[in-house]
Structure formats: structure tokens, C-alpha cells
């Protein structure tokens, strides 16, 4: 079974973002970029499926400009076999991304498609579900366990208040939650080896998808800030303040 994993290049999760002074966007100039943490979990899961002998090939795909090849190489170093960059310029909305990924799915015919549940920049949480809809495939979002058995996937999902188990017919789309696995670190030999693994570049036009942005970002602001309150000295004083000042007890 071939596994296709979609990955996104995003700001490193340790970097504190700042809103640009003209309020057009956040400032990404000279910031450290990385593979989206949820996407990294998806790559790890695919590689583990290959190590278990369930997957035969792991293909990673990213949609973006040349810079996203860095994240594809990272994925190859983690154990993916080959990479595809769909070349586009500028940020795209999830529907356009899903349409492009759907064309890659048609071309590659994977048995399982793994994506992160959301990217930590736009926080949309949409692409996997949209891809599943466009490809006419079943979906299991927010996965914390994936078991493949023949032409079925049994997926445990994180839902409000607990866990849910679904059984999907393959091919299927699965999006990863945090606890699915803990990604490995790429070893130096694997990083070197990744440089020689195949990386194909195709354009959005090659895939026959024309995209128009129907969702515009008008402005980006800092969130309302919350100021520090007071320090209390004792539990008694705390309860007094909550009762008589804040009136929440």
C-alpha cells in the first residue's frame, strides 16, 4: 500500500509571532520555519506503517514555493521515500490546496492519505476533510491510533469528552492529533541520504487546477491584551477578593 502524506511549511512553533505595524499580516521575515508539528506526526505514522510492513511506499507532498523543499527533505530524512512539490506562489486557501492535493491523489492512487489536523499558522483545520470530500473518500480526523487491516482502517479519534473508534474502507483520509505518536529525530546519515532521494516539482497548471482566492484577509491585529492583576497573600484574601471584588463566588 502506498501512503501519501501532505506537509506544510510553517513558522517554527517556538517562535513568537508579531503582527506587522501596517496590520496586513504577521511578520515572517527572517523567522525560523519548520514542518508543521501535526504534519510531522503524519510523516512519522506513515514511516512506522512502512516499518511494520503495512505500507510499501511513503510519498510526501507539499504545496508552496521552492522554500518548502526544505520541509520535504526533512520528511525524506525521517524516512519517506520520495517527494512532490506542487509549485505555487503565495499563500493559498485550504479549498485550493485540497483541489491540488486531490489531483495528486488521482495521479498517485494511494491507499491511505495522512495529513496533520491543522496548521499552526492559519489554524484552519480544513484541508484533510476537504480533500476527503473532493476525492469521495471516508475520513477520520484527529486520530490518536491507526490500525490497518487489509482494506480497512480502524481509527481511534479524539472527540469532545473522550475517544471514538471508526472503521473506514480504504482508501481513506486520516488527520493526525498530537498523541498519535512522537516523531523521531532524523539521524545525520538519514539527512545525507535524504538529499539523494527523488523530489519532483510540478506546477499547479500541470495539474489543471486554476485557483481564485475568494477569501480575503482584510487586516491582522494584535489580540486584546490582558493586564496582570494583583497578588494576594493568602487563601483567605483570595476568597475575599473573589467574593467581594470580582463577585464570582
Amino acid at each position, binding site marked *: 500500500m502506498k501512503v501519501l502524506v501532505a506537509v506544510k511549511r510553517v*513558522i517554527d512553533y517556538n517562535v*513568537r509571532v508579531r*503582527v506587522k505595524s501596517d496590520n496586513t499580516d*504577521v511578520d515572517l521575515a527572517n523567522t525560523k520555519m519548520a514542518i508543521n508539528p501535526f504534519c510531522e506526526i503524519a510523516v512519522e505514522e506513515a514511516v512506522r506503517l512502512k516499518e511494520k510492513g503495512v505500507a510499501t511506499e511513503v510519498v510526501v507532498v507539499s504545496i508552496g514555493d521552492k522554500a518548502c523543499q526544505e520541509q520535504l527533505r526533512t520528511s525524506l530524512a525521517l524516512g519517506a521515500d520520495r517527494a512532490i512539490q506542487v509549485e505555487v506562489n503565495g499563500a493559498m486557501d*485550504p*479549498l485550493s490546496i485540497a483541489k491540488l492535493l486531490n489531483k495528486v491523489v488521482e495521479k498517485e492512487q494511494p491507499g491511505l492519505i495522512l495529513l496533520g489536523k491543522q496548521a*499552526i*499558522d*492559519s*489554524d*484552519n*483545520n*480544513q484541508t*484533510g*476533510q*476537504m*480533500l*476527503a*470530500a*473532493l476525492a469521495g473518500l*471516508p*475520513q*477520520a*480526523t*484527529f486520530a490518536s491510533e491507526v490500525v490497518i487491516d487489509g482494506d480497512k482502517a*480502524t481509527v481511534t479519534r479524539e*472527540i*469532545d*469528552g*473522550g*475517544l*471514538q*473508534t*471508526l472503521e473506514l474502507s480504504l482508501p*481513506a483520509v486520516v488527520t493526525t492529533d*498530537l*498523541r498519535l505518536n512522537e516523531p523521531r529525530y532524523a539521524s545525520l546519515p538519514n539527512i545525507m541520504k535524504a538529499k539523494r532521494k527523488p523530489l519532483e516539482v510540478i506546477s499547479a497548471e500541470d495539474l489543471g487546477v486554476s485557483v481564485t482566492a*475568494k*477569501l*480575503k*484577509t*482584510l*487586516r*491582522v491585529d494584535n*489580540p486584546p491584551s*490582558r493586564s*496582570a*492583576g*494583583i*497578588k*494576594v*497573600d493568602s*487563601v*483567605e484574601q*483570595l*476568597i475575599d477578593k*473573589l467574593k467581594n471584588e*470580582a463577585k*464570582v*463566588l
Partner: protein
Amino acid sequence: MTTLVIAEHDNTELKPVTLNTLAAAAAIGNEITVLVAGSNCQAVAAQAAQAAGVAKVLVAEDGAYEHQLAENVSALVTELGGGYSHILFPATGNGKNIAPRVAAGLDVNQISEIISVESADTFTRPIYAGNAIATVQSEDAIKVITVRATGFDAVAAEGGSGAVDSIGSAHDIGSSRHVEDKLAVSDRPELTAASVVISGGRGMGNGENFALLDGIADKLGAAVGASRAAVDAGFVPNDMQVGQTGKIVAPNLYIAVGISGAIQHLAGMKDSKVIVAINKDEDAPIFQVADYGLVADLFETLPQLEAAL
């Protein structure tokens, strides 16, 4: 122009988060129809019909909708969706699972987790874990939206008089099957619906010590939450997680115990009305957002607090 609101429910009870979503629909201003898709869920439809501002309730009952399988419910909403200007889902696990599938089916974008309605086509939403707020405008004919409950005060659960219509449309796609739900059993309110939340962090030391929070939670009628650090350390299960990657809460009172206050956690609770922080490290970032801070050892403080309440 009509807005369709998708009800969140468990086939017996309308979940309060639906009322917050209705508030967002009211802010958009169109007539409001609620869709209740489920199995044997007439009681939910009756509750939805009573919510303030609801003109009509559509109820689709079929075994295929019992567990809110995304394939089946999205097929139903996509079929109905062409007739509406806006389709609103609560930004719950369910809503987030289904809404994008509907949007793609209708060939429109989806707008995630709005926290305000600026106009019928312009909304604000947090990005970068709440470190920035984007104002977005949609040119799509149908706006498919998920609504973050903490951004909108719930409409009244009673006082409305919507008409209830059953629709016979059944979609059983058959490509997915529900196996089981394992839900945490608790007498306490749900995290996202509680008016008081008390959360523990890595400072709790281990899972057993969370019992120190339970006694206080029982006295306050509070829900118990946790930081991601406490979840990652294996103290408590992930459904207790408050933060960017967990639940977003905005109770009247939020008590953070042994939580340092990573951005990740603040993203999930900083809209709470009153924040209390108890931490022995006086430099912990949590104190920068807390209305009341107590620098103390939580193992001494918590029993005192429980006794004093």
C-alpha cells in the same frame, strides 16, 4: 436570505454550544433555520424550536446520522446547503469534522472559528494560536462557518417558537462505520460549558494529585481541566486539555494551579472573565494574565482553599 445552523446534540439533548452558534447567526441578521440530523432526535428538535430567534427547525432522522459520521451528515448538509446564504456549525469536534467537507462539496471556502461577525460577509478569527486576530471577507455565495462559542453569548434557550419540519432525506454513504465511543464519565459540567474551571499543570506532580482539584471542583460546581504539559506528562487524559490544541474555554472563573502559562495554554483560556493563578514560581508567565495571583505551594494551598469554600 436564510442562515442554516447545524445543531450539536447527542440525540437526546441540544448542546448549549448550539445557543452560542445561534447568537452568531443572529448577528448575521438573516432568518434562522436549525438542522437537527440524528437518530430518534425529536426531543432535540423540540428544544431547538424553543431557542430564541429560531424560525424553523428541520429534523432529519436516520440511523446513518446517529453517530454524526462526517460522510453521511455532510452529504445531507451539502444537499440542503444550496438554499442558504450562511451555514454555521459550532466549532466543536463534530463541527470541525463536518463543516469543511460541506464547504468542499459546495465548492466554497470555509471560515474557521469566528469570534465576531463584522457584517454578513466579514468576520474575525484567531490565527497563530490566538497571537493574532485576522479580519476576513468571503466572496463566496454560501458562507460555511464554524463558530467559536466563547466569542458569542448564548441566546436564550426558551422563548422561541420555531416550526418543526421532518425531512426524509437519508444519506448512508457506507464507507465508514461507527465502532464505539469511550466517553469519560463525570458528574461535573463539561469543560466548555462550565462557569467555573479549575485546571492543573505540570506542577501537580502526578495524576493522583489531581484529586486535590476534584474536591474544590465539587464545591464550586466546576469542571476540571489540565495544561498540555500535564497531558503530555501522562497525568490526565487529553480530553481535559485546555489550550490551543485542546479545548477553548471562557468561564466566569478560571483557576490555574501549577500552570506556568505557556502561550499554548493561554490561547485556550485567556478570554475567561476572572483568572486566578496559584503557582510557587512568582515569575511564571501565568501571573501576567491573572487577575488574582497567589505565589504559594499548591500542596499547602489547595487543602486550605477546599476547607475555606
